[in-house]
């Protein structure tokens, strides 16, 4: 690990100002320290925000919920209101990492977790995300875990997280405090970026921008699902995951919010997939049509081609379950 200065921060504004000058926030440390040990990330200063007063979950005036950026993943998943009204969020968090990691990982840190691309993790290899302009060896190399949607010529790395996929279905917002002391709110759906020609930018945060909370609008009607397909049944990142909130009324799909993990360079939500379902009678043909729309632009790189049919099957299985139908084989 490269040497760094360590400072414990006592106020949010001061932390934002300090990081605007250089260095990095550290919250749980479970992603940052992993990457610092490998010298994939080499901040010369760590501003520890772990004890800032941002660890509460509270009701909002409009009937929603505000989850502080330092609420641990465990506490968020176990919170009574989250379990009752935002089940997809509890389920997605519980599908990720391990009990120990969730006790340490925070809401803000989870959102900002970086890709698990093997080349990104190996400082000896070229990687446009780690070192802009150096090239991408995943493109013609080992890319079984890589993305099939939202990729660019520069980078095909998957956004690996689970929590943000659930937050996308919930229309959550990320509350951000800038180094200039201004607060803004960004929909989770617009928070992460596709790589384009700037793969080094995972999300819209500018230097010093501090996530202070995630806010959830009032609960949506419907049943909540989070289905994660992975190489082993626990403690592994998603190959494909589907978060869904589905409401069926009078035998028709009244509403559907769907988001996908493991599939794309960011948590993926495609309104057209939902539009084709809404107002229709559930049927396997309809679900296939939704999958056609989702995967119309999907592009495999060889080893990850299997994700395209896997996403189709996972989506149709979740829709079938959500509509109370027999799951297709």
């Amino acid at each position, binding site marked *: 690990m490269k040497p760094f200065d360590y400072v414990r921060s006592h106020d949010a504004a001061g932390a934002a100002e300090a990081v605007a000058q250089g260095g990095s926030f550290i919250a749980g440390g*479970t992603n940052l320290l992993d990457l610092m040990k490998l010298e994939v990330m080499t901040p010369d200063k760590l501003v520890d925000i772990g004890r800032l007063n941002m660890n509460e979950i509270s009701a909002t005036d409009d009937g929603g919920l505000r989850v502080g950026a330092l609420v641990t993943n465990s506490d968020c998943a176990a919170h009574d209101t989250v379990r009752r009204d935002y089940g997809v969020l509890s389920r997605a968090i519980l599908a990720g990492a391990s009990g120990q990691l969730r006790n340490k990982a925070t809401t803000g840190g989870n959102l900002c977790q970086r890709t698990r691309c093997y080349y990104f993790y190996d400082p000896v290899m070229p990687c446009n995300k780690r070192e802009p302009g150096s090239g991408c060896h995943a493109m013609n190399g080992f890319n079984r875990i890589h993305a099939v949607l939202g990729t660019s010529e520069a980078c095909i790395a998957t956004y690996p997280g689970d929590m943000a996929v659930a937050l996308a279905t919930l229309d959550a917002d990320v509350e951000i405090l800038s180094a200039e002391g201004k607060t803004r709110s960004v929909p989770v759906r617009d928070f992460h970026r596709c790589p384009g020609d700037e793969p080094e930018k995972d999300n819209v945060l500018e230097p010093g921008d501090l996530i202070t909370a995630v806010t959830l609008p009032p609960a949506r009607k419907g049943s909540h699902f989070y289905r994660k397909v992975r190489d082993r049944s626990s403690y592994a990142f998603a190959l494909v995951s589907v978060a869904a909130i589905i409401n069926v009324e009078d035998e028709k799909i009244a509403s559907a919010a769907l988001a996908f993990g493991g599939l794309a360079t960011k948590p993926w939500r495609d309104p057209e997939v939902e539009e084709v379902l809404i107002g229709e009678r559930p049927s396997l043909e309809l679900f296939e049509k939704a999958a056609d729309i989702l995967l119309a632009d999907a592009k495999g790189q060889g080893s990850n081609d299997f994700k395209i049919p896997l996403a189709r099957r996972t989506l149709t299985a979740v829709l079938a379950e959500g509509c109370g139908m027999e799951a297709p084989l």
Partner: protein
Amino acid sequence: MQTTSLHINGEEHTLKADSRTTLLDALRNHLGLTGSKKGCDHGQCGACTVMVNGRRINSCLTLACMHDGDEIVTIEGLGAPEELSSLQAAFVAHDAFQCGYCTPGQICSAMGMIEEAQTGWPSYVSETLDDLKELSDEEISERMSGNLCRCAAYPNIVRAIRQIAKETE
């Protein structure tokens, strides 16, 4: 250099160490508490699991200086060879290890896990998100998935934990 005060197993320690020192390295290399093990050093195996302020965490993925003033319990704080804690005794009784390298982490993790389950936390395999009613073997396996065992003593680890979870219900 950072000066950090740590409460470990009921004792006060003042640590003076480079800011890069992880909690795991502080325990093992600076304070002589070698019960906590280093398997992967990257959060992937659970051998380094300790309790911090009542919660199980991976001590390899956190810096010692982040824990100034925190309460830490390691395997050494749970019991000693001549007075084993109930979990330790159950691991012996059920033959829940072979080489023993993962065992301190398994036991610390199980301590935290049993408490989480008794608080009612659901898990990924829970049918509903209501308060957990029964800690089945499937629940134990899922909740302990952050602890790998290269000797694959998993069936007996589950049996040992099941016994203690039942006794402390």
